[in-house]
């Protein structure tokens, strides 16, 4: 009954624009087994699974089912082979009922009266796995956990023997996670195999039989979960050489620039996103905030730059209180900002390069008089940014949306540091950029810091944090799990801190701060 007894992926390589997303990956999963794929964001887990599901084609390497090589050209072929995938973002029609969604994805849906005929089949099927969902409810009325169950039913109805779950717990509540684990156990007992993608150590340890750890597109380790522990996995995930920093010159700590005290910030969903965060930042210093995306980094950055209101607590720059001032006022006090999602928040895509080069500076005397912009100066300024930051473009009266991500980001950084800010808040500045642009931007951040500015760097890329930062705070669920020097021994446990399972005492300087 189970078609997939063993699935192997051999020497899989895949690169995007010259960057390896997967390099020589070998994984194997057997019937009745749950394989965990562990790794940070961007480690290549999802790419690998998209190859297995037929969304991408590998550059080289092969996929074998029960020892026989197969070619998977598209998701439909993958479904027919018995592979099912539950994407991180559900592929459901929100306005349709559960049964309509199932009918859409089911390969043997009858042409006439699909709902009536499928209903019986689903009923008998879901009792087997103890799914309890009202088939006539609209999907938008369901909780995230219920929606996920609909996705799982869809794959199982199509005869999936191998289920791929991409970050399945990221949207679930604790109870729903328990229910999901129950379902997975039952499937395992039935002889199904599961590939479980996650960056959460606890879950991997609890659910998986075997775990493979990916880092930067390569396999860096693997183990039976019963033979390993969380610490071992965390080390593998982050890499043992984390504490070895690059050729960064050690600068003397300067005066205090920024002080953040006990701030609380509310997120978009109305719940607390930043809880009681305090830290200080000094001249000549790069301070990193590490953490898995969505743990309050964005809200913290927005609170400091004035985009999001602060519920309580104080933010001071050079001793001046800037709490809840307008973004313009905060900018004028010397805080500039390289926002995340550069296309959405960093630029006006349809405007020319030179318009974008002065987005927050149009009010400065040198660029405008009364209501009129001085385009001559603006264009000169833009040209100087383009030369200095090596923005590749054929003209400055080019819509900025035509530039590549790296060039857009170079222009944004050039714009933000052209006025020599006291503090630069940079959110994921090199996210999604190629190696060249990444190195270029990092060098400029170091240079800025050498010139006497302070940098607050939000990043999910631990290598970036270790390469650039003097100190690093780890944020989890809106709280700092600790602030450490990057040359501190304890930094090896940063993976555990990011997963929220370990809290470090702050160093004495920071501890004294709250008093």
């Amino acid at each position, binding site marked *: 009954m189970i078609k997939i007894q063993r699935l192997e992926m051999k020497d899989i390589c895949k690169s995007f624009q010259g960057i390896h997303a997967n390099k020589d990956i070998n994984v194997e999963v057997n019937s009745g087994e749950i394989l965990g794929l562990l790794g940070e964001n961007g480690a290549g887990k999802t790419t690998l699974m998209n190859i297995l599901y037929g969304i991408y084609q590998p550059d080289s390497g092969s996929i074998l089912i029960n020892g026989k090589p197969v070619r998977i050209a598209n*998701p439909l072929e993958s479904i027919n082979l018995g592979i099912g995938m539950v994407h991180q973002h559900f*592929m459901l029609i929100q*306005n349709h009922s559960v049964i*309509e969604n199932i*009918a*859409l994805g089911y390969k043997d849906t009858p*042409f006439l009266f699909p*709902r009536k005929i499928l209903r019986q089949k689903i009923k008998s099927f879901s009792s087997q796995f103890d799914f309890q969902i009202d088939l006539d409810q609209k999907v938008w009325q369901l909780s995230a956990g219920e929606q996920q169950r609909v996705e799982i039913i869809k794959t199982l109805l199509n005869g999936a023997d191998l289920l791929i779950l991409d970050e399945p717990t990221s949207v679930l509540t604790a109870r729903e996670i328990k229910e999901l684990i129950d379902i997975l156990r039952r499937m395992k007992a039935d002889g199904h195999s599961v590939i479980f993608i996650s960056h959460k150590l606890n879950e991997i340890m609890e659910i998986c039989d075997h775990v493979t750890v990916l880092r930067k597109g390569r396999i860096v380790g693997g183990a039976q979960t019963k033979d390993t522990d969380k610490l071992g996995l965390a080390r593998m995930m982050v890499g043992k050489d984390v504490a070895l920093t690059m050729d960064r010159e050690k600068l003397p700590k300067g005066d205090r620039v920024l002080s953040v005290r006990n701030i609380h910030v509310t997120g978009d969903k109305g719940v607390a996103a930043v809880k009681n965060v305090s830290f200080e930042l000094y001249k000549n210093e790069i301070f990193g905030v590490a953490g898995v995306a969505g743990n309050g980094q964005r809200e913290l950055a927005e609170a400091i730059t004035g985009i999001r209101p602060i519920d309580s607590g104080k933010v001071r720059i050079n001793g001046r209180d800037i709490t809840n001032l307008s973004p313009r006022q905060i900018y004028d006090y010397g805080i500039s900002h390289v926002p995340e999602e550069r296309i959405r928040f960093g630029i006006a895509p349809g405007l020319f390069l030179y318009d974008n080069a002065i987005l927050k500076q149009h009010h400065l005397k040198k660029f405008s008089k009364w209501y009129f912009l001085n385009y001559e100066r603006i264009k000169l300024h833009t040209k100087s940014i383009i030369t200095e930051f090596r923005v590749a473009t054929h003209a400055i009266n080019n819509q900025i949306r035509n530039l590549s991500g790296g060039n857009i980001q170079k222009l944004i950084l050039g714009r933000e540091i052209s006025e020599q800010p006291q503090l630069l808040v940079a959110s994921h500045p090199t996210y999604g950029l190629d190696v060249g642009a990444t190195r270029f931007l990092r060098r400029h951040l170091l240079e800025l810091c050498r010139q006497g500015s302070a940098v607050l760097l939000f990043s999910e890329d631990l290598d970036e944090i270790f390469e650039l930062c003097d100190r690093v705070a780890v944020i989890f669920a809106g709280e700092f799990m600790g602030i450490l020097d990057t040359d501190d021994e304890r930094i090896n446990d940063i993976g555990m801190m990011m997963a929220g399972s370990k809290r470090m005492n702050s160093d004495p300087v920071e501890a004294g701060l709250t008093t």
Partner: protein
Amino acid sequence: MEEIIISTIQRTMVAGTPLLLATTGEIICERAGILNLGVEGVMAIGAVTAFIVTMTTGQPWLGVPAAMAAGFAVSLIHAVASVTLQANQVVSGLALTMLGLGLSGMMGKPYVGRPLAVKMDDVAIPFLSDLPWIGKALFHQSPFLYLAIVLALTAWFFLERTRMGIQIRSTGENPKATENQGVNVALIRYACVLVGGIFSALAGAHLSISYSSSWVEGMTAGRGWIAIALTIFALWNPARAIFASFIFGGIFVLQYLLQPLGISPNFLAMLPYLSTLIILLAISFKDPRRLNAPARLGAVYKRGER
């Protein structure tokens, strides 16, 4: 009095027929997520084509397929623009209306003022048409009326009770997820735009070879726009469109009926639009998810984009 009522009902059915045909077509099209504002133009093309073919051949039944083919052909422009070229659907639809009105005016120039020798005859349904009162009003009518009702009911059944219907509706709601289930979104959208165009052309044919038997430039007289309003009024449901179309058709008839009583026909002509506005307002107050508005109506969908 009795006669006035019967003739009012009868004329209401006649006035509602093209509205129902065009609305059913537009509903199918919009359910797949494509907004087609070209209904008025396609209707005019359908009307002039049906008229010319009927006049030349003397066969109204040849005029109908000719109109359908013409509707198919001009709608293909909108399908290519909005699905393949991913153009702005509002602009493309408006262009189609202008093109259709202009082209039909040009094609029909030599035929203005020349009535048809044979127009499509009304059909009396045996037994039912002998019923007192409603028999003559409802069951001795143009074949287009019966066709419109049958097509609307079929469309409803198709959209709500078949697998393909689920695929069409899913396409309008979330093309990306639909594509992910192995459905060919582009194909579905093409088919729906073209079927919508054929229905609009049928509505035009009704005007020129059944309702009247002559061609006048601009004889669609805004019925295409009313069909678009009706699509919303019927909440994208072809079964509801049947009732909605005849209500709007009734308003058409009342314009003439009430004029002698001093009620301005302009006021009544305004009613379809006014009631659609009210419905739109109600939608914006209520949770749109409880109504049937396709979530991605009019939005460009690019394959493989995140």
